[in-house]
């Protein structure tokens, strides 16, 4: 009696397993086959608009671009890349103060980096004072979590506003695709 019962429940289980375990796969494959043939043979040329390339992408900042362009002392990005070695990913940023007319000191600091993984990396210990000997250059490196890529920088600089007054000006710098290169010195 009980054996018969377990026999019946096994049969039921097998039925369910065959339907789900084999039926669903067969269905998936048949749908694939149908769609493939349907799209390729019976549908006219795909909409040219579906190619997705016309999307206007907002270009971010890259090497050669100018920061604080509306301020007295402008700064140019002359190096922006990720240096990858087997052990670590480093983000390298080099800035040049191109303005030689100003007689004042300029202080720039990277407050933080926003990463692709939505994490924030603090930029501390990376503020530079650029003494007047233009064009002055500064350079910094940050160790990134392996595989992560900065998407935005938060940079601030003390800009002169009046004779003796300075103002801290912050700028959000959305980055264009940062070049990633192998770091040969590692």
């Amino acid at each position, binding site marked *: 009696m009980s054996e018969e019962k377990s026999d019946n429940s096994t049969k039921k289980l097998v039925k369910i397993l065959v339907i789900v375990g084999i039926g669903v796969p067969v269905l998936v494959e048949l749908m694939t*086959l149908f769609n*493939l*043939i349907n799209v*390729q*043979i019976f549908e006219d040329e795909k909409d040219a608009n579906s190619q997705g390339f016309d999307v206007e992408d907002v270009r971010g900042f890259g090497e050669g671009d100018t920061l604080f362009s509306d301020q007295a002392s402008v700064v140019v990005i002359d190096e922006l890349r990720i240096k990858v070695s087997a052990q670590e990913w480093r983000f390298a940023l080099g800035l040049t103060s191109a303005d030689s007319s100003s007689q004042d000191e300029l202080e720039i600091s990277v407050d933080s980096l926003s990463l692709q993984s939505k994490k924030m990396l603090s930029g501390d210990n990376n503020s530079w004072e650029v003494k007047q000997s233009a064009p002055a250059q500064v350079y910094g490196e940050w160790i990134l979590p392996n595989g992560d890529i900065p998407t935005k920088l938060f940079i601030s600089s003390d800009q002169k506003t009046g004779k003796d007054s300075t103002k801290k000006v912050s700028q959000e710098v959305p980055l264009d695709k940062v070049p990633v290169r192998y770091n040969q010195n590692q």
Partner: protein
Amino acid sequence: MPEEKSNPTNNNESEKSWEERNPDIVREITIDEYQPYGTLTLTLIYFAIVALMWVFMYFVEFAGNAPSIID
């Protein structure tokens, strides 16, 4: 296989064929009477699917996927 002869558990039943000893088996089918029609059917279905899919993949998916390497 050799262990067939040396297997002591089989000794008492060694005259019986495996089919006779197996409760799941309804009847024994010998080589002379066995005609694998089902297998032939399945393999022919497989042949048809493969041949059709090949033609489709080669002449539609691949040849229609220009630009191609022409030299």
